[in-house]
């Protein structure tokens, strides 16, 4: 019991001291969290290949040439005769330098195939994030400000409906609406931005919208909830009483404190967006990472599968690091306001 009281007191006087030791603690704490995540997720990725009972050397050599001696020789060349942990370490150190191995079948370096396809998914995902934040943020804010209005209720219903629709269904609906019926936008294909920003946007706007909608709904719902509770706080009423313009109160005071959970949602939903990107690739016939992975999985081309999974997981980690940094900055500015 006494211990609890002691920490309670320490907690009460802590803020100043906590800030003093914060830099080292933050760096250390961040690394303690990040390093295991990177190592574990890459290890899981690598183990998938080792789990498979496929015999890569025999596959590469073909049925006729796959004598035990030849298989053993190729295994040695590929490093497949070493213990799993050693293999993993070799793979990871190579991967960090940008070498993800060579496809068993096409002999094309994996990093090269991924490099060709990554821009497609990055384009879609980036535009989707922008669209999700714009649509979800606007809808959530307007709904919270006009609480109980028809717009608010409309947003709530729209969010429930959209969250039941997977990206591939949304994609097909968009194709039917904008490409097949109205002939407004192309139904398939991809053009690099180097060939012109107009055609590039034309090709990625529908796929991006398809995977943005679900995330936009999540953001709108979360932002509405937190904004409603923030708008009820005394300091908002106080700011209004002091005569600050409503727009300023909303943006500077309310939104800054309410957008944390919505930001978290964006980080949490990023893997869902990547899944949506695969759906969009299929629906809109885009040459992206998902297509590469699906083809490689069918052939059991393990280096390609591992490479794609590693790149995708890295993106999820990076996006969540950015989200984490933004959240920390928000927390700091919120502390600064309240102090």
């Amino acid at each position, binding site marked *: 019991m006494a*211990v*609890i009281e002691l*920490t309670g007191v320490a907690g009460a006087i802590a803020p100043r001291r906590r800030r003093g030791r*914060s830099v080292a*603690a*933050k760096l250390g*704490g961040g690394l303690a*969290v*990040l390093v*295991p*995540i990177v190592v*574990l*997720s890459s290890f899981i*990725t690598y183990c*998938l290949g080792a789990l*498979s009972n496929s015999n890569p050397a025999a596959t590469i050599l073909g049925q006729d040439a796959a004598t035990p001696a030849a298989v053993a020789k190729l295994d040695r060349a590929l490093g497949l005769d070493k213990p799993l942990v050693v293999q993993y370490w070799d793979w990871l150190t190579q991967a960090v330098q940008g070498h993800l191995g060579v496809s068993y079948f096409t002999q094309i370096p994996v990093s090269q195939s991924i490099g060709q396809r990554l821009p497609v998914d990055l384009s879609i995902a980036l535009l989707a994030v922008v669209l999700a934040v714009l649509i979800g943020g606007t809808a959530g804010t307007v709904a919270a400000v006009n609480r109980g209005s028809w717009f608010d209720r409309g947003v709530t219903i729209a969010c*429930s*409906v959209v969250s*039941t*629709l*997977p990206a*591939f*269904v949304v994609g*097909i609906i968009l*194709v*039917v609406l904008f490409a*097949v*019926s109205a002939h407004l936008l192309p*139904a398939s294909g991809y053009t690099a931005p180097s060939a012109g920003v107009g055609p590039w946007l034309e090709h990625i706007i529908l796929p991006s919208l398809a995977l943005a909608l679900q995330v936009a709904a999540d953001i709108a719902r*979360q932002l509405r909830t937190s904004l409603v509770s923030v708008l009820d706080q005394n300091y908002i009423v106080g700011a209004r009483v002091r005569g600050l313009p409503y727009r300023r109160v909303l943006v500077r005071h309310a939104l800054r404190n309410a957008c944390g*959970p919505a930001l*978290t*949602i964006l980080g*949490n939903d990023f*893997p*869902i967006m*990547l*899944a949506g990107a*695969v*759906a969009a690739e*299929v629906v809109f016939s885009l040459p992206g990472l*998902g297509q590469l*992975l699906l083809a*490689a*999985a*069918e052939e*059991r081309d*393990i280096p390609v*599968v*591992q490479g*794609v*999974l590693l790149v*995708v*997981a890295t993106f*999820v*980690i990076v996006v*969540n*690091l950015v989200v*984490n940094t933004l959240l*920390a900055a928000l927390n700091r500015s919120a502390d600064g306001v309240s102090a």
Partner: protein
Amino acid sequence: MSRRPLIGQRSWLRLPSAKIALVILAVVIFLSIFGSALAPQNPLTINANALFQGPSAHHLLGTDYLGRDVLSRLMAGTRLSVLTAFEAVGIGLVLGAPLGVATVFLGKWFDFAVNRVSDALMTLPYIFFAVAVTAALGNGLVQAMSAVGILLAPGFFRVTRAATLEFARAQYVEAAELFGASKLHVIRVHVVRKVLPTIAVTTAMSAAGALLAVSFFTFLGIGVTPPAPTWGGVLSSDLDYLSQASWAPFIPGALIAVTVGALNALADAFRDRVGPGAMPVPDPVIKTHSTLTQSDREATDARQTAA
């Protein structure tokens, strides 16, 4: 602990949305058991004289590009979708929930280790992971959905752990421990019963996610031998013939959406029961010192005082 009546003032069933959701789910489960037997026509019969027909008395939901009856194909395809979704949720529940309770009671290092594994799993997008698993373990829907189940586990784990932390610190637990109650007794009597409603919410939400995953996999054709009917398969065959029958994808699309919507509504109803108006505060995938939420800090404090 007195049991609350299933139907009554405080029951989650009082919500109309929950009742509608239960009816829809009952129909889906009924179809998954008897769907292929009750299908009005053989879902595999090809009829070259009846391609792309709209809804009619003979074909209630029309026919596809081979003249096969869409209603029969959807009815016969229900079982695979529902069973594999159950599989994934079951794996997630069995892996995640017990660990969520255990980490609270088995010490700091165990807690740290399981949390990091859970974090690592959360960085793997389900579709990429599942496809990679089918590449390693063989192309099958069961393999793909067990991968989804493994990725659902962190969700169960985090929710259960948070709820357990909350209840394990309650004063009545402290009192019970003073009276000499064992850890197992505390878990059984004071923790598990309280945590169950929270797990129910996660189960319903995960089932919705798993169903979306199955329909996506069958849409991609993962683990399905072509003539076999599936929900997603009906959708993908429609995709190639949008110019002939642009209304066709809306039928399987609506079926998936309604089922997922029913599961979401059920989750909402459970959530109302857990706490009025409780909207879960999202949990960041990567948490460092400065972004720990208030409850995280309290949990750490509580563990430090307990140690």
